[in-house]
């Protein structure tokens, strides 16, 4: 066996993550032991999406990948571990008070946020905007100051570029009166020209943000409490400021390299060649710290390309980094801004085509070659919908009249087949049109998920997905492939079509349905789908008759399967409101059955470790005490989370808890294509995290704002505003119709966010169905929901009352009450959990072992 070589990576940011991912994908972890050192306490996360933290999201949702990467043998992540020096002679780095050897070293240390030399810039209340810790502290500060001062907080953001506007958006969302101060003559001077900056300013001012351009900050003053309170400008003017964010730029974190004597760029950055090798051949530099091809690259896309180059080089390849596309498309404060190619018309003789509509707040410019044929670049402010289609056309003839691309109605995209193979479609991951076509022709990808997985296109910022889909479909049509929408090998129709078949027919069993409309015996895909459809349409109890054979074990025994084959039990706690007596019952049941208890994110209590044969006894106790099934096992309504709202909270403007309870009782048990989560917040502070839910409701002075299409989990999404200031009655009707329309038309396992995208016309079309009855089905949807509400029964109570149904809870058909003899537990923090393999081996052998402490590194 050859000895594995050691790769050390300094910095655990976005680019380091991509490097390790690329190494593992190529199997390089067989030849290399990879050690990654990051001084932040979190595993690598999506810094680009940092601002989304303010919508009250869990920082966990920002983590890149699923964490499995760091558990692989040969890959190790040291968090909270700063590397303090490099010894190039000995090939060692110093961290964690010791030294680590390396054969090759990668510097991926990113950048610092810089703070300008302004007096008072270190006062409490001054922040930068770079890490999760920065934004978490900023948020806490604003909320705290508001409570202490008893008024709106005054915020000032120094820097009117990309980061500054993101920060201003965040402050505004936190309820602060915000001023943006920009030294240049207009906002975002690096991305847009003066006219574009002017348009941007008008839109941003309309959102209530004050903008001062051509202004230099000179001093910050503290109040009597020592905290920042006032900002002074070079021209003598002053404004109040309770919080200040510096967003004036970044500087490469090249101090390690400097001390180690590596060659640096004039304005910072570790100089590296096109192989990303620095002046020491054992050391690479990638990401924002690297100075390659004459500059540093402040975007994640080029950093990812460098990571791929190094992965390839470590495997003996000869990939090179020769510069990258610096196009950007952003949504700042809800305003689209995009700039691509030669946006400033630097090319000799170039022509500019401008379209501006100041009332609509739109400014668009294309830069064309001197013969007005070839697109060189452009910028779009206020409406960047043409960006996805335009960017790949840079350097190519636009064909038709270029102005047609700028008019709102004229944005006819190039048809999928006209885009040349080498056109770059996904700039974050550097994927060309040809690669996407190849995914169809050479790798048999026939749906967008497969293409994304195969090519990585559309997996970072996502702005190219619609184009990727179009390319894929066009290519499939060319290959004579049908875009398959079949549910599985047994049904050739989609879930939505199957739903309609069941809806309009008298069919109420799986066997009838598969006889008439499918083939074979079914599978683990179509059986639960049919069970769900029958359930949604009120065609029988989930455990009734033949329905029983369609259900996944979770639905079958109405509990959630855990890793050791036992189940967890979750009683419904509507709106998260529970009496002390109720808590005592749950606690007593848990104690009597030795269940591990944990509070869920949905504001209820999960009881783990119930054996199948114990479920009826446990539920009997719970049902007797007035609890009912929480449907935690089903593709169905889970919870309606709520904050305490007006009844206790001093900020609340509506009774969020009562509404949440009413909604949970209304939609409980509703079977749907995927799980459904709702939440209600009592004011704009959004403590219930409603915008992370499929349906989110936020109280206003006048009623309720309704948001739809949010979710957490693997691909977190923000809910979008659906309607404003609804009365409770209007709100409930809108949710009824929205949910039923979703249940009726979504694909299997399609959550509301992708469903909204898949509907022709998107959220606007759904809004028209719900509020204007554009399809003439509103009455049907209302009736279907009324039927659901009227026929609801608690599945657990019904099961307990039925001797026959109880039979399925036997542990063994020939020994119904014998526990699974292989279950082994250890104690941890006063409760039990399943033993891992190592502990099992020891426990079964009879010895006792100490329970391991959780490791510090992942």
């Amino acid at each position: 066996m050859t000895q594995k070589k050691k790769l050390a990576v300094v910095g655990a940011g976005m680019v380091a993550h991509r490097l390790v991912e690329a190494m593992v994908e190529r199997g390089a972890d067989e030849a290399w032991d990879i050690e990654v050192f990051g001084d932040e306490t979190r595993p690598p996360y999506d810094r680009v999406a940092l601002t989304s933290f303010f919508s009250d999201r869990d920082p966990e949702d920002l983590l890149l990948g699923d964490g499995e990467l760091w558990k692989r043998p040969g890959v190790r992540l040291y968090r909270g571990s700063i590397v303090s020096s490099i010894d190039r002679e000995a090939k060692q780095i110093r961290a964690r008070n010791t030294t680590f050897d390396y054969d090759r070293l990668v510097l991926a240390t990113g950048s610092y946020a810089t703070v300008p030399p302004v007096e008072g810039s270190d006062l409490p209340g001054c922040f930068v905007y770079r890490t999760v810790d920065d934004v978490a502290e900023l948020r806490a500060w604003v909320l705290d100051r508001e409570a202490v001062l008893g008024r709106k907080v005054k915020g000032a953001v120094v820097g009117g570029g990309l980061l500054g506007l993101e920060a201003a958006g965040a402050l505004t969302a936190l309820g602060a009166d915000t001023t943006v101060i920009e030294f240049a003559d207009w906002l975002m001077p690096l991305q847009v020209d003066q006219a574009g900056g002017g348009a941007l300013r008008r839109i941003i001012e309309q959102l209530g943000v004050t903008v001062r351009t051509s202004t230099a900050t000179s001093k910050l003053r503290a109040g009597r409490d020592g905290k920042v309170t006032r900002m002074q400008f070079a021209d003598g003017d002053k404004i109040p400021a309770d919080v200040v964010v510096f967003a004036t730029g970044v500087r490469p974190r090249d101090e390690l390299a400097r001390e180690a004597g590596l060659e640096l760029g004039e304005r910072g950055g570790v100089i590296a060649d096109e192989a990303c090798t620095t002046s020491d051949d054992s050391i690479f530099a990638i990401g924002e710290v690297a100075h390659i091809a004459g500059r540093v690259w402040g975007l994640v896309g080029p950093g990812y390309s460098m990571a791929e180059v190094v992965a390839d080089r470590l495997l003996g390849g000869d990939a090179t980094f020769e510069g990258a596309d610096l196009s950007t498309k952003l949504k700042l404060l809800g305003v689209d801004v995009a700039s691509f190619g030669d946006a400033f018309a630097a090319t000799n003789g170039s022509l500019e085509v401008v379209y501006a509509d100041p009332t609509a707040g739109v400014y668009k410019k294309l830069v064309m070659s001197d013969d007005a044929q070839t697109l060189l670049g452009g910028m779009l402010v206020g409406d960047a919908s043409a960006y996805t289609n335009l960017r790949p056309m840079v350097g190519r003839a636009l064909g038709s009249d270029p102005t047609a691309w700028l008019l709102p109605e004229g944005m006819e995209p190039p048809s999928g087949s006209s885009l040349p193979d080498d056109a770059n479609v996904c700039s974050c991951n550097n994927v060309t049109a040809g690669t996407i076509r190849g995914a169809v022709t050479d790798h048999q990808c026939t749906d967008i998920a497969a293409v994304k997985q195969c090519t990585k296109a559309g997996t970072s910022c996502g702005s190219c997905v619609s184009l990727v889909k179009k390319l894929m479909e066009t290519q499939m049509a060319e290959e004579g492939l049908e875009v398959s929408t079949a549910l599985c090998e047994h049904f050739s129709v989609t879930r939505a079509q199957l739903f309609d078949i069941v809806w309009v027919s008298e069919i109420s069993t799986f066997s009838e349905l598969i006889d008439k409309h499918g083939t074979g015996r079914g599978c683990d895909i179509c059986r639960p789908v049919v069970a769900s459809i029958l359930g949604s349409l009120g065609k029988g109890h989930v455990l009734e008759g033949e329905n029983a054979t369609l259900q996944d074990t979770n639905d079958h025994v109405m509990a959630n399967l855990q890793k050791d084959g036992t189940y967890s039990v979750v009683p419904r706690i509507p709106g998260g409101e529970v009496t002390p007596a109720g808590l005592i019952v749950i606690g007593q049941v848990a104690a009597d059955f030795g269940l591990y208890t944990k509070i869920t994110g949905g504001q209820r209590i999960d009881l783990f470790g119930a054996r199948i044969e114990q479920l009826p006894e446990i539920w009997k106790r719970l049902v007797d005490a007035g609890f009912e099934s929480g449907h935690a096992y089903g593709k169905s309504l889970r919870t309606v989370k709520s904050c305490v709202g007006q009844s206790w909270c001093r900020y609340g403007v509506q009774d969020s808890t009562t509404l949440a309870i009413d909604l949970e009782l209304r939609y409980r048990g509703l079977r749907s294509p995927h799980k459904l989560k709702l939440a209600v917040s009592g004011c704009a502070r959004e403590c219930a995290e409603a915008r992370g839910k499929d349906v989110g409701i936020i109280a206003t002075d006048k009623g309720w704002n309704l948001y739809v299409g949010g979710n957490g989990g693997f691909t977190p999404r923000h809910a979008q505003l659906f309607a404003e200031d609804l009365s409770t009655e209007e709100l409930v009707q809108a949710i009824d119709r929205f949910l039923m329309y979703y249940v009726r038309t979504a694909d299997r396992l399609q959550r509301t966010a992708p469903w909204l995208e898949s509907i022709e016309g998107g959220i606007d079309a759904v809004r028209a169905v719900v509020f204007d009855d554009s399809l003439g089905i509103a009455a049907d949807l209302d009736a279907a929901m009324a039927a659901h509400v009227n026929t609801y029964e608690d599945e657990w109570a019904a099961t307990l009352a039925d001797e026959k149904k109880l039979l399925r809870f036997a542990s063994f058909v020939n020994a119904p009450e014998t526990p699974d003899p292989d279950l082994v537990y250890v104690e941890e923090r006063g409760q039990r959990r399943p033993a891992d393999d190592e502990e099992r081996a020891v426990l079964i052998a009879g010895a006792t072992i100490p329970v391991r402490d959780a490791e510090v590194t992942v």
Partner: protein
Amino acid sequence: MTEWQRVCELDALVPDRGAAALIGGHQVALFRLSDSGEVHAVDHLDPFSHANVMARGLVGSRKGTPTVASPMHKQSFDLLTGQCLDDPEVSLQVWPTRVSDGWVEVQVEARSGAA
């Protein structure tokens, strides 16, 4: 040496749904199929998750062969041969079965064998 061991009445098995049984210390998953009427017996231990759960998987078919899918991570297994259809290196042990006098019987090694 093998012998037939009585496990349960046929009626105790719900068609197209599995049931676990303890047979000589071994945990076995029994499946009664609705169309063929046959009963199949395979390991109850899921070789991927090492939990005793196979009897709680969903019955189905792939290209005509009857299958069961692990409820844990959904790998499918051929009920006739025990072969995992998603990983050629993994399989479940299978036992011959028969129905006599309305009772399901499973053939086991007379001596230890099964493990």
